[in-house]
């Protein structure tokens, strides 16, 4: 469907035909542009502040994992902590 979009970094000045040049359907060029926006977002590194936000979820899951370990080994340890 789309030819070169996945082959390497998006280069903005080539690849996508301008409207009127795409022969098949009128929607093609619009779809191509959206695909390039998505591919670009896919290539971009996730910003640190997004990742640190997501690390909150690690903090939530950690205690439950610990308590699983504790109950399976020594139940008395929980109170001593």
């Amino acid at each position, binding site marked *: 469907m789309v030819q070169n979009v996945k082959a390497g970094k998006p280069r903005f000045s080539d690849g996508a035909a301008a*409207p009127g040049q795409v022969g098949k359907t009128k929607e093609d060029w619009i779809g191509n542009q959206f695909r390039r926006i998505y591919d670009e977002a*896919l290539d971009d590194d996730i910003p640190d502040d997004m990742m640190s936000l997501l690390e909150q979820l690690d903090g939530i899951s950690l205690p439950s994992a610990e308590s699983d370990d504790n109950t399976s080994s020594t139940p008395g340890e929980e109170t001593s902590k």
Partner: protein
Amino acid sequence: MSEASFKKALVEAIPSLRAFARSLSGNRDRADDLVQETLAKAIANRERYTPGTNLKAWLITILRNQYYTEGRKRKREVADSDGDHAATLTAIPQQNGHLELTDFLSALQCLPEDQREALILIGASGFSYEEAAAMLDTRVGTVKSRVSRARARLEELMSGSPDFVRDDAAIQASTDMLNRALNA
């Protein structure tokens, strides 16, 4: 859904969210702010997400609520920024018949918001008309008509004439034509 798999699903959704937000807002920095807010809300409200349902649809619903809430505030703050922006778009450059991505993003911003978001949901995010209608809280027919009006308007904004020639003779001919029209 465990916290770990919720986190994994959120990470996987980030490129889609960023792409959606960029198309919707036309601005990368604002887009990333929107995604950041969306992730914060998703984490805070994760109990409200029903496992097995479409997470991306849930996240995008949060994102567009955030966008419109902020948008209403912004409109009060910067009254005519949209007007100024649109004014810079009267001539969209099309060198060598190629289209710059930034031009496309700018053209999207010229669409009415309801048309723009319908087009992005269908044309970019890959939702069905039914899914989009549910997310936008409207009817399938309304989504279809918004998308088709958005396409037509974009076509109009970006295409001009496919046979458009940009050389000295053509520019001179246009100038002459304009002058004749103005002096008539």
